[in-house]
């Protein structure tokens, strides 16, 4: 049918009646979509169509040209030759005293035609430096002159920004485009924000420095009411992470994590672990934040990341850091044992470093030597995490709080030594916690097993305290009748280990685990 009709259409394209020309142009469009090789007659008339006085014909012509350029190189070349003509048409629309008041919407002359022309320019100039140079001026003109107060203006500005980013344009124009999109992010209209985030996500690969400037607005969008906007803001925030801004961005994402939608949590947690591992600088910061991730999103952390964290603590952390980690884990476990991976990791840490946990003598000296982390107010974040778990936290008297952005009014800064001092447990406390975990119905069976192992380790760590060993034995005994085979087995075996006969052997068995040498961790 296309072959038959193309002659007819060609004839009608030359018709003096604009109405017929308009329909013929779009008929041509349809033909091209079906049979791209039939472009010759249409290409010949391209110039005439694009500069036609009648707006309807122009619109059709623009669409036809765009379609042809998508298919054939010849059309593309012709299009590039015609750039001055197209630009002229656009300028005519922008100039005051527009030719056609009936096409106006909200004071802007024929916005649909403007958008269509901008789109055509994008298709034509993509990949052509020369064409892009010719477009610089008119694109800047559109960007600066168009009033973005209403949706029509925003639509034009959006198309302009997308075009500016798609073609090899000048740096100044690209920065202007990103700034336009940044302004959109603060727009009250959901649609505009959505569209801006989508484009910025695409642009962040090539325009990273400019997009970084709008980081604060993107982070605000993390708490938007619209779920698709939240999702895109999350993706964009992760894409923006680099060495210099990883700390504030991770802090913000952690703030949002407890309230995030269930479908986001696994990927958020996974990407957070990756970001912390890849971009984190100090070991202390990395461990702290992994602890936060575990306690806020533990259910969704995969086993591999958890193993990596444990290995990190065992292998690279010095004794002081291990003590700190153990202390924080203990405090976190006391408050909440619902997050599975946190329980497993925390229990292991508490069991392994129980001796460090209760050491009080050199506590004051080493704690005083701890430099408070300068970035992001570590104290606030510690409290933030506990606050997120819904537990009350003590306040420090007097000294000014260093909370960031004033968004944490109820959590005052707390001196780390004071917070840690609160949490120094006695051996009895540790036994109590571990047996609570082992006996709790909400923890998974692997948590239970780790808790039993940790209890056994305590017998070695606190070998000199007979009361402790006795309570450990009692705690283990409770599970010797357990329905779960593994639990029962462990309870009985450890119980046996704790009995008199194996006194000599026991110390060696439950001693500090050597740091794992393997670098590859098992995948769950």
């Amino acid at each position, binding site marked *: 049918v296309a072959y038959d009709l193309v002659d007819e259409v060609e004839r009608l394209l030359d018709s003096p009646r604009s109405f017929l020309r308009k*329909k013929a142009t779009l008929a041509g469009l349809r033909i091209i979509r079906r049979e791209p090789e039939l472009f010759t007659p249409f290409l010949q008339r391209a110039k005439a169509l694009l500069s036609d006085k009648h*707006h309807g014909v122009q619109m059709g012509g623009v669409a036809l040209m765009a379609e042809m350029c998508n298919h054939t190189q010849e059309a593309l070349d012709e299009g590039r030759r015609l750039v001055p003509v197209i630009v002229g048409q656009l300028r005519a629309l922008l100039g005051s005293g527009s030719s056609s008041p009936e*096409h106006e919407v909200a004071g802007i002359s024929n916005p649909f035609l403007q958008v269509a022309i901008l789109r055509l320019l994008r298709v034509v100039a993509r990949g052509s430096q020369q064409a892009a140079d010719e477009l610089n001026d008119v694109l800047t003109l559109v960007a600066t002159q168009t009033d973005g107060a209403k949706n029509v203006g925003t639509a034009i500005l959006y198309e302009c920004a997308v075009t500016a980013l798609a073609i090899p344009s000048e740096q100044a124009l690209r920065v202007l485009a990103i700034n336009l999109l940044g302004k959109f992010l603060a727009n009250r209209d959901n649609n*505009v924000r959505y569209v801006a985030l989508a484009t910025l996500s695409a642009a962040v690969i090539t325009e990273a420095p400019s997009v970084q400037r709008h980081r604060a607005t993107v982070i605000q969008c993390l708490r938007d009411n619209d*779920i698709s906007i939240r999702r895109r803001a999350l993706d964009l925030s992760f894409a923006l992470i680099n060495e210099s801004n990883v700390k504030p961005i991770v802090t913000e994402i952690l703030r949002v994590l407890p309230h995030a939608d269930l479908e986001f949590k696994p990927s958020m947690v996974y990407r957070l672990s990756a970001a912390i591992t890849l971009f984190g600088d100090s070991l202390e910061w990395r461990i702290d934040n992994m602890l936060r991730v575990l306690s806020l999103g533990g259910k969704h952390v995969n086993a591999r990341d958890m193993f990596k964290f444990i290995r990190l603590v065992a292998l690279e952390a010095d004794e002081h850091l291990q003590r700190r980690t153990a202390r924080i884990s203990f405090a976190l476990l006391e408050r909440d044992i619902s997050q599975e991976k946190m329980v497993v990791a925390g229990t292991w840490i508490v069991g392994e470093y129980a001796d460090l946990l209760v050491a009080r003598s050199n506590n004051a000296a080493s704690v005083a030597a701890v430099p408070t982390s300068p970035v992001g107010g570590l104290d606030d974040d510690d409290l933030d995490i506990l606050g997120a778990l819904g537990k009350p936290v003590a306040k420090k008297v007097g000294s000014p709080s260093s909370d960031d952005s004033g968004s944490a009014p109820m959590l005052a800064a707390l001196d780390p030594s004071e917070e840690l001092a609160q949490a120094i447990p006695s051996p009895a406390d540790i036994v109590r916690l571990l047996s609570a975990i082992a006996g709790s119905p909400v923890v998974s069976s692997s948590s239970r097993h780790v808790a039993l192992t940790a209890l056994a380790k305590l017998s070695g760590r606190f070998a000199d305290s007979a009361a402790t060993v006795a309570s450990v034995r009692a705690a283990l005994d409770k599970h010797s009748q357990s329905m779960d085979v593994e639990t029962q087995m462990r309870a009985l075996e450890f119980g046996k280990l704790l009995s008199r006969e194996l006194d000599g052997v026991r110390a060696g068995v439950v001693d500090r685990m050597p740091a794992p040498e393997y670098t590859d961790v098992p995948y769950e």
Partner: protein
Amino acid sequence: MIRFILVQNRQGKTRLEKWYSQYSNQERHKLKAEVHRTVASRDQKHQSNFVEFHNHRIVYRRYAGLFFCFCIDTNDNELAYLEGIHLFVEVLDSYHGNVCELDLVFNFYLVYAVLDEMILAGEIQETSRSVILGRLDQLSSLE
């Protein structure tokens, strides 16, 4: 380009449908039901007017009890099509004078005529209200 246009009421009845791409009857039924499900369940105040749908996007707007949905390609300018929807509704309004759902039901042929004047082959062709209305007057004088 626009793939298809649907105007549906809140219960899911389709008052107007125009297909600019090849779809079999069965596919059309499925699409209509799916579009209604997707669009009717969205929260007007907090969510944007754009939904991802298969490989395309649906731009929709609710006017009184009717959902006007345009299904467009992913690389199209959604904000511009939102304006297009508004223009379409405005033209219908000025033609019928305060148009309501019943007008669409009883004068469906006129609605299709307006649509065909505005949109052809999936592209917006005529954006001038006066031209469209002038054309419609011509057509009705022929009857």
